[in-house]
């Protein structure tokens, strides 16, 4: 809150809309939104992060038009060629164009990140708020389970799940999601505990609202902002974990152009053909950095107290 409050006075003179006292819910919401946008835009690194993410989405959407070659087309006479005007990032051991494979790889990355986030977010949010709202035995059981999950480093637990589910892209997504929800549940629970006894929840209860209605109508919306921030920051580590699984040969399987698997395949030829491992690694790093920067910026806007 304080970060925004100090931001506002300077802008008030110029922007009349923000100067007004809100007379309706919509107006108040728009004012908050504008303040948030201003805060976000004043953070150059966060804007850079967002731009890269938008670029990633655009590349994934228009991959067939951006790629210069078919990503899976093998051409052994062109194998292991260094970067040139034809093959911008060079070619791999089967003569496939690395640039085109990276372009198509953005689809794999986005697929993983999106799927994990939309699974982990709602599950963590619901488990956490229900556990925090009811307390007692339910809470104790849920917290013991999350304790157990959080007792492991993420990658080791993900590897275990992959071992059970078998290697593959879908299995990797499921394994990462299975590992990811407890952290979100913990966060949602902590938030719920602090607002559970507040007056407006008591008021809602006095009006006869059911527990379900209170959880979905009054508690979840309040937890949303910190959960969104955590999910965004989590996307960076999802990308790194997925790439790590691909690298170990337990994630996306060939010939899927997954960046981690590409790095792993390029290892053998690395000493003579450096471009095989360089480009996919840079791609992973840039995208993961972008999500980190964007998440940091988002936190300043949505959840300034946790800074």
């Amino acid at each position, binding site marked *: 809150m304080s970060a925004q409050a100090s931001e506002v006075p300077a802008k008030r003179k110029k922007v009349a809309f923000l100067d007004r006292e809100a007379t309706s819910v919509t107006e108040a919401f728009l004012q908050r939104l504008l303040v948030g946008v201003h805060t976000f835009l004043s953070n150059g690194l966060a804007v850079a992060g967002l731009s890269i993410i938008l670029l990633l989405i655009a590349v994934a959407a228009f991959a067939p038009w951006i790629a210069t070659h078919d990503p899976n087309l093998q051409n052994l006479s062109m194998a292991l060629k260094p970067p040139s005007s034809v093959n911008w990032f060079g070619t791999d051991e089967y003569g496939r164009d690395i640039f085109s494979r990276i372009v198509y790889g953005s689809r794999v990355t986005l697929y993983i990140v999106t799927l994990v986030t939309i699974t982990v977010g709602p599950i963590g949010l619901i488990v956490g708020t229900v556990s925090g709202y009811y307390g007692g035995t339910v809470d104790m059981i849920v917290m*013991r*389970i999350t*304790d*157990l999950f959080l*007792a*492991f*480093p*993420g*990658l*080791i*637990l993900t*590897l*275990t799940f*992959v*071992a*059970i589910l*078998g290697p593959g892209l879908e299995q990797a997504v499921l394994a990462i999601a299975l590992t990811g929800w407890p952290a979100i549940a913990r966060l949602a629970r902590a938030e719920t505990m602090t607002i559970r006894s507040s007056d407006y929840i008591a008021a809602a209860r006095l009006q006869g609202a059911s527990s379900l209605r209170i959880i979905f109508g009054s508690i979840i919306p309040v937890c949303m902002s910190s959960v969104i921030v955590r999910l965004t920051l989590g996307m*960076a580590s999802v990308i*790194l974990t997925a*790439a*790590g699984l691909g*690298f*170990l*040969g*337990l994630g996306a399987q060939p010939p899927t152009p997954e960046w*981690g698997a590409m*790095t*792993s395949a390029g*290892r053998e030829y*690395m*000493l003579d053909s*450096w471009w095989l*491992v*360089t480009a*996919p*690694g840079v791609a*992973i*790093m840039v995208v*993961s*950095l972008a999500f*980190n*920067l964007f998440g940091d910026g988002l936190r300043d806007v949505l959840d300034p107290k946790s800074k």
Partner: protein
Amino acid sequence: MGRFFKRNKIKRAAQSLASVLVTLLLLVTLTFFLGQVMPVDVVSRLVGPDADQATYQATYERLGLDQPIIVQFGIYISRMLQGDFGTALLTGHQVLDDIVRVFPATIELGTLALLIGAGIGVPLGVLAAVQRNRPADHIIRVVTLLGHSVPIFWIGLMGLLLFYSYLGWVGGGGRVEIYYDGLVETRTGLLLVDSLLAGDTEVFWSAVRHIILPATVLGYASMASLCRLTRSFMIDQLSQEYVTAARVKGVSEWNVIWHHAFRNIRVQLLTVIALTYGSMLEGAVLIETIFAWPGFGQYLTNNLLLGDMNAIMVCVLLVGVIFITLNMLADLLYKIFDPRTVQ
């Protein structure tokens, strides 16, 4: 009053011990049932594909697989309490013996990585806090953000490419040059220590050349998180009134930073460092694969690729135990060094 406090303390210790035991029991249960759903036919792995039906059946019964799940669980627990964790398909040895054999290599790597990570990360964090929002802080922030964003296996590969292949400054994969392998008698399992004990400086320097790159790469990731945390701990302290008071008294800035503010974050830092040590295991899985480091991470990866569920589960159990122990140790450190937490 004195007796009351003592009894309270014992009660609290018992409570935390009980909660650890419950978590451990849950862990064993989880690993057992995860092992159950693994789509691997243990029996045919043991007897081979050409075994006849009778042999298959006999092995099936010998392993107790014809018993109800709950009985199998009981057998599993009782075997575990007797220290029998089963054999690994990969090596044919007891899994526990295997782990005891490979673990020192990982400890050696992880410890050096932690020394590098904390040795660089903590001073950088202090510098960033002191220089808050000035150029030095921004540069450090970029360095740590990169540490959070870069895939660890990729820096490992890039490091090999640059320092091993092009510059030739460091050794390649493995713990020593291949012709030094097995020359030094194993005493602690830590090659750096063993070679010094044996007085073999040639092997020692070869080992140093081999460990320095993987340890630095592994340390970089922990450096990033330790630096970030140190910075925020220090900023907290530097905004306290006692710091202003010390400055007003004319205490030099160096003393304010290191003798006043830093003193107060030592406990927090120590607990964070203890937890970071545990997370080294995670990075070790990837780093050991790249550097052909014969440690725990590589052992786990090989078992994963083979699908040996028993060995995997023992490894996972061990990681869990290490983490829980480190957590407890961190708690304990807090209680010993921070008098405020003792009421």
